[in-house]
């Protein structure tokens, strides 16, 4: 069982390190001994690569700690306001929608799917590359709108924007 070393105070307020590993590690008072693979990792915060060639879009570069400051959520609905209804259903619908779009539009979306809910309508937005002919894109749009409306029983609309290729949305290399 590991003891929390009080001398190793967390440097930043949000950095809570949980020492939950059960492997026998020798205690040390001077060197911070932690399970490197499990701590020091945060959700959606990539570590620098050796060659610094891991591409990040602008949205991915804004790490989750900035949500609410310089970054917004990817879904807009009123379920979390006072008297908001259907919180759980909306969240699960969102997860389903993201997976559906990911699977139907094969490597076409280069941004996260933005889901907006207005009255009973669901509006999906995002950036799409121009790899396929507009004919095929409209086929996909018609298909997605129709089948998602039938699944969710609400009108679903798509409002997409196109981008020349994936490199256009890469903001930096990490």
């Amino acid at each position: 069982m590991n003891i929390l070393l009080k001398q190793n105070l967390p440097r930043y307020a949000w950095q809570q390190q949980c020492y939950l590993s059960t492997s026998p590690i020798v205690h040390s008072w001077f060197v911070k001994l932690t399970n490197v693979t499990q701590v020091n990792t945060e959700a959606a915060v990539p570590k620098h690569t050796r060659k610094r060639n891991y591409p990040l879009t602008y949205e991915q570069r804004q790490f989750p700690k900035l949500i609410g400051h310089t970054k917004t959520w990817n879904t807009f609905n009123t379920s979390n306001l006072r008297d908001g209804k259907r919180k759980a259903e909306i969240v699960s619908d969102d997860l389903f929608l993201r997976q559906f779009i990911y699977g139907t539009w094969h490597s076409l979306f280069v941004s996260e799917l933005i889901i907006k809910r207005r009255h009973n309508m669901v509006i999906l937005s995002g950036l799409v590359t121009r790899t396929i002919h507009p004919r095929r894109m409209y086929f996909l749009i018609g298909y997605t709108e129709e089948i998602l409306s039938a699944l969710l029983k609400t009108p679903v609309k798509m409002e997409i924007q196109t981008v020349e290729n994936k490199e256009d949305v890469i903001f930096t290399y990490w």
Partner: protein
Amino acid sequence: MLLRLFHRCASTSTAARPTNFTFPQRIERSPTAILESLNSCVQTDGGNPAYMFMDDPFLIPTSAYEKRQLALSKASGKKAARWIIDRYSYAFFHDVAVPSIPSYFPTYTFDEKEFIEPDESTLYKLMNWNKVTKAHEIYKKCLEYKIDVSDACKYALFDLLCIYNSENPLEALLPEEDWYRRELNEKNQSNLTSRTWKENGLAEQMFEELKLSATSEQKIRLYNSFVSGLLKYNHVEKAMTIIDEMKQATIPIDLTTYNYLIRSTSLIKESYDQRWQFVVDTLKEMKDSSIQPNLRTFNSVLYTLRRCPAYEQGPKLALAVLNEMRQCGIEPSLGSWAHVIMIFYPSDQIGFETQMLPQIMDELEKVAQLEWKDSDDGEFFFNAMFKATVNCRDVELAKRIHRFLMVGSNTRFIPDGFREQLYYTNLFRLLFRVDMPEQVMPLWESVVPNVYSPSMNVMEDLIEFISTWNIQDYYVRLWSDLLMLGFIDSRQTNRRILDRYLSLLIQTNHGKPSTEQIKQYANIARQILKRFPLEPEEVEQRFGSTNDASAQQQEMTDGQQEQQQQQQQQTNQLRPKLQYDGHLLSNLICLLAPADDWEASWSLYEHYLSNRSTLINALNEQSLMSLLSLANRKNAINSALDIIETINELQYECLGDALDLLNRNGNLPNQSRQHLKTIQKKSKVESAHHVKLV
């Protein structure tokens, strides 16, 4: 602050205060009142694409062909989704909507059991799902098995059979397809008066059967439905015999039947007077049976009058009908006006003098909000514009109609793409012939390309218009418009536009274009060359193979080389192959030479020389002269001599000018001068001999 309060009290005390206060009553509004009021603030705007398209430059269609393609692809996607919904229907039954939305559910699949042991509810379900023929089958089965079917059900089934002519009703098209329904449903294009009623069909069988067992009220319904069906599908002889039967059996005729009867008058009687007499008699009958006519009745009367073209009494009677309508308290709908227009202007020549159209427009502009009241309403705008442009040739009137169209949401009264295309074609053909650019071009910009994609005739008229009015600023813009609207490709039909446009650029009778414009024109010529590469066929294949052989010999094996060659050939075949002729080459040279583009012009000239046998037309004088002056400027003496020899061969009159031009060049070596003299001696052209050569 206190002073302000004092002022406020003072003002209210001096004003006359009402002694009693009435609460304003709550105005009952429909659930969509807010949406409707927002809708009234929005007009048709030519700046963005139709609602069904995505608002992104890659996905906005500009030419008519693209619009159709993309709309139908979207409809095709929806159909694919529908197929999946029906195939995997078990996944689509979880419902969260209150009230539930039926169109989001899979279509009802009938159990086998329901067909084996039919029941009245099966019949109702089948009828609700538009499966009328199957319903009749099951009805027959019910009779066999002696299962009781209620009268209401039987008569409902009979009505449906009459309405749909013993067939299943057509599937409702998706809105994207509906816009193109004229092309998709070829049946609509066939003659509207051809007899399509099915003889001895299911409807007739059922009629015979039910006739035997009907009570008197049921008989009324039975006979009326049957006659209406017969008249709807234009089987007039049988309809008249049934009507005689009804009259003998004193079965009263219904309003719907009367409407259909009046509408089919032109099939029953031949001469115009007889037709009108028949209509009047029918209306008298209606009055005697105290049946109030409705809008459809009057529209049918007007329709019948319209089917009597060039009837002298026609206009008078039409006005009388309109009066009658107003007396009955029925407002004429757009459909009535559409018929009136066709009565007053029956063909392309007649009707120039009447002021009917302006009067109609006056009437309509008073109406606050147009509503769709009758199935004929969709013809109004098309007819109005057609007559205004072809008969009246009145620009003000045409613009007035167009302004009226743009008010509010009146654009929904042009129900399909075909009519809209013709509407705008008529409008612009008139405007291009008669009006001035300052007024036409803004209108053109507002409509093209999102609302209207012009056809080739209109584009030709536009080019004519621009050349007449010499709107030089628009020339270059016109090129990008032509590209956008899909008129620049290798098809033979679009060749005329390309030729016409290039001759527009080249014409010199409106003054010399500025250097900026010369550069832009040369750019256009280069774009054409890039789009439609110049190489003739044998050279292409050889070129392709040698290219591959030399460049990739080290890396690839033989098999891969051949594959590469084949692929190259295939892509060359797929690339647009524009048939170059001498005319086109001359035009391109005329555009490139003034801009000092030596390589391009010379390569065109050489292409002409090498393919002289296969090309139609030769290079014309203007192009050769401009090429010569370019060669002169660049001091490419040998090339210049070559050009002069070609001029000599073709025996153009400009040989004299050509010789003179080269003569004046100070840097000409003696050898070249000798050469010029020999050409002059040998040439057969008159003017050449008049030139004094040094």
